[in-house]
Structures are given as structure tokens and as C-alpha cells.
């Protein structure tokens, strides 16, 4: 699903290197937690995956797209293969919950009938069916996050990318969100989740990729938030 080989990212401002020599391979159906302190390069790595930024050098393949050779007009085709949950939810404030989610379908030219069929299902999945006429401003952080996830899931993309999906939420709400993500994973989606949620990472025992200073310092299959001391499965260890 995802292949990164020797990827470097240097920000235009000059010598600030955001990512150093990243090697990462994520097979389909994997659930990966991306952990590390603020500024470690988690968001940069995610942005690389949905081609919000391009690598300075190295090779990236995502969902069959060679991102080093991706033409600008193919970016929308890449993005349709993935659901993206942004740190700030990215909901349109002047549209209702229903309209926000439907938007992702309308963009792809889906019919009203199709939308009416798909939305209740995904709203049910994130347990937001009762609030579909509310505007984002009327929702709590957790509810907005669930709407953002619903929008990312509605077209059943094979890849789901989430940046701090439990960031500003209380533990209980956060757990609900992670449960939704887990369900998506069980349906076959590949998940890349950047998080600071130590408890969740420790409890769920998924693959953990730890970043520090723009390098991968740890990659464990059944990992914890902090290093267990056990040698990792291998790639990118400094």
C-alpha cells in the first residue's frame, strides 16, 4: 500500500530538514501508529502520503501511484484512494453534518440515491446519525472529529490517514474514535494514524513507528508508545 525509500524532505526555507532518509513499507490492511514528539516529522510524513508536499528526494509509492512522477492533474485521483482526517477536522462551517459528508460524494459525481444509501450507514458507524442536521459549530470536538472520520470513510477508501484523531478529546471520546478506526481496519482499510495518545497505543498493540528529529527511531509490530527495549523489526533504526 505504501512504500517509502530513502525519502528526504527539506523545507524551502533552507537547511531545516523535516525528514531524514525515511524507509517505510506498509502492506495493505496494516494499522500503523505514528508516534513521536511535536516536530518529529509525523505531520510531514502524512502530508507526503497525500501529496500535500513532495519529497526533496527519494521514492514514494502510495496505492499504486508513484508520487515522484505524479502529475498535478492526477492528485485528485490519488486522494480518492484515501480518506484523510485532518488535525483541525476540516469541516465546512456553513454546511450541516450531512452536507459535509455528502460533499465528498458530490465531488465524485455520485447520485443523490447513492448518497442517501451510503450516508446513514457511515453516520451510524461513527454514531452521529442523530445529529445529521447540525452545523459543525454546534458540535463538540469529539463529534466534529467523528464527522471528519465519516467523511473520510464514506467512499470506503483502501487507505485512511488520520492526524491526531484523538488530539483534543477526553479519553472516553477518544476511545470511541479509535474503535471506529479499528472497525474500518477490520473491513480491510489500511490505517496510518499519527497520535500522542499513549494509552490508546499501549492498549491496542498495533504496529508503532516512532519518529524523532525527522528520523524513524523505532518500528515495532506489536509496539507500545514508548520503547520497550526489545530490538525492533528493523527499518530505519539509527
Amino acid at each position: 500500500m505504501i512504500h517509502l525509500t530513502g525519502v528526504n524532505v527539506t523545507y524551502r526555507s533552507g537547511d531545516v530538514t523535516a525528514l531524514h532518509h525515511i524507509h517505510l513499507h506498509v502492506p495493505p490492511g496494516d494499522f500503523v501508529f505514528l508516534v513521536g514528539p511535536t516536530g518529529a516529522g509525523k505531520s510531514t510524513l502524512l502530508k507526503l502520503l497525500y501529496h500535500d508536499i513532495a519529497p526533496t528526494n527519494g521514492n514514494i509509492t502510495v496505492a499504486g501511484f508513484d508520487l515522484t512522477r505524479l502529475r498535478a492533474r492526477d492528485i485528485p485521483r490519488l486522494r480518492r484512494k484515501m480518506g484523510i482526517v485532518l488535525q483541525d477536522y476540516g469541516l465546512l462551517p456553513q454546511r450541516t453534518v450531512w452536507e459535509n459528508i455528502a460533499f465528498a460524494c458530490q465531488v465524485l459525481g455520485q447520485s443523490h440515491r447513492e448518497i442517501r444509501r451510503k450516508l446513514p450507514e457511515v453516520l451510524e458507524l461513527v454514531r452521529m446519525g442523530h445529529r445529521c442536521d447540525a452545523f459543525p459549530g454546534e458540535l463538540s470536538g469529539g463529534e466534529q472529529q467523528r464527522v471528519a472520520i465519516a467523511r473520510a470513510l464514506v467512499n470506503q477508501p483502501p487507505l485512511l490517514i488520520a492526524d491526531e484523531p484523538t488530539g483534543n478529546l477526553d479519553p472516553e471520546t477518544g476511545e470511541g474514535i479509535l474503535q471506529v478506526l479499528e472497525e474500518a481496519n477490520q473491513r480491510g482499510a489500511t490505517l496510518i494514524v499519527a497520535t500522542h495518545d499513549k494509552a490508546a497505543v499501549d492498549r491496542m498493540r498495533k504496529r508503532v513507528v516512532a519518529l524523532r528529529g525527522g528520523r524513524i527511531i523505532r518500528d515495532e509490530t506489536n509496539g507500545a508508545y514508548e520503547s520497550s527495549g526489545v530490538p525492533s523489526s528493523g527499518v530505519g533504526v539509527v
Partner: protein
Amino acid sequence: MLEGFLSWLRSVGFSIGEAFVNLRRHRLMTAAAITTIAVTLILVGSFLLTFYQVKTATDRAASEFEMRVFCRDTVTKAQVPEIRQRIRQIPGVATVEYTSREQAFRDYTHDLPIDVRGIPNKFSEEFKVTFADPKKAGAVARVIRGWHGDVQEVALPEKEMSGVLRIIAFLRTIGFVTATVLLFGALVVVSNTIRLSVFSRRREIRIMQIVGAAPWFIRLPMLLEGLIHGLLGGLVASACLYAVDRSAQRLITDVIPMLARYFTRVDMLQFAVAITGAGALIGMLGSLLSIRRYLRAI
């Protein structure tokens, strides 16, 4: 294949619908954009109207200059039609009017309170020439002056004419420069307003990009909005200019009737169509240019 076309059609439909929803949603921006475009077009339009009036008035003044051609005494009545024909054929000549020496004498002595019988007629056969192109007056005069055998004298108010022609040239330069500056200013102001409106929606653009919307899908509603802003701004401007033109006409014909004959009636319908079209073009171009910045940023 058919499904692909249908989904494309639905996207287009949705996109057009979005444009109208957005006009309502971003009411304040819509109002700002329409006002800006309208004000700018009123400025440009009233300048064009004024300039057009001044220009046609001066043109007319220039074309009203007459040249008088006095024939030698040797010229007989039989030669008159031929000379008249020759003058008429000189490029730049509009009309040639013939006055016989008898008529000239009668015109001159008509109001004199004396008995003119017995006074010899010293007048000569005469032509009054007007010009289609006042700039050629000098050349026409030179040609006729060359007919030594037939022509005694050519009277042309050359000094006055060249003065008026200089004024026309001056006006043309001023008009061209002012119109260019105004249009450029208009474009800057309008594209700034539109950029502001697009800027206020960069979040929306970003979210569209995140969910995989094609660039045309993002662009189309905003283009349409720009078009509608421009059309409405153009209509408002047209209405204002129409009102101004009407009252200016009335004012001039009522207050200074002698100026009325220099006042040209402009086809306001045609003018309104042009102004509205210019608005639509500015609106569309402005939004196209502003969106590009945000689309490229990805």
C-alpha cells in the same frame, strides 16, 4: 461509459448549484464584489461617455470649418459645374456649395440702406467647401490654389483649424492615457476584491482538494460566481450611467440650448451591453487569476 458521463454531468450540475448557494452563503463578499465592480465600471463608463461627447463635439467643430474658393473673373457660368466637380473629387472634401456672383452681391447688399443700382458687381463666382477630414484641409487648399487659371483666391481659417486639430490630438492622447490608467486601476481593485473573496474560502478550496475534487470542479463555481458578480456589477453600473446620461442630456438641452447641437445621443442600450459585458469579463478573469494562486499552492 454512460455511468462515467452521468457522474460527470452530476458533478457539473452540483458545481453550478454550488455557485448559486455560495452567492447567498457569502452575501457580504458578493455585495462587496458587485459594488466594487459597479463603482469601477461607473468610473470607466462615465469617463468614456464624457470623453466621447467632448471628442464628437470637437470633431464636429472641426468639420464645420469652411473653405471659400473665389474664382477669377474670367470664369464663365458654363465652367462652374466642371470646377465644382473637380473640387468635389479632391480627397477629403465633403460638400461643395456654389454661390453665383449675383447671389453674393445680393446677399451682401441686401441689408444695406442704400440704392445699389449702378454699383458694379465686384463679386466673383464662389464655392463653399466643407471637409470630410479636416486634417486634409491644407492639402485641399494647396491643390485648388494650384489652379491659377480659374482660381483667384482660397480662404481657409488655417490657424483656427490647426488649433482645433491640436486640441483633438491632445484629447485623444489624454483619453487614451486616462482610459488605460482607469482600466488598469479597475482590474487591480476588482481582482483584489475577488482575491479577498477567494482568500476567505481557501479553507473550502483546501477541503475540496483533500476529498479529491478535480481542479475544474473547484474552479467552476468560483468562475461562475465571478461571472455573476461581474454581470450584476455591470447591470448596476449601466443603470447608473443611463440615469446620469439622461439627466446630463436634459440639463444641457434645458440650460444651455446652444450646446445641444454638439451633444451626441449615445445608444445607451449598446453601451449598457458593453459595460455589462466588460463587467462579466473582469469578474471572470479576476476570479480565474485569484483561484490559480490557491490551486497552485498544492
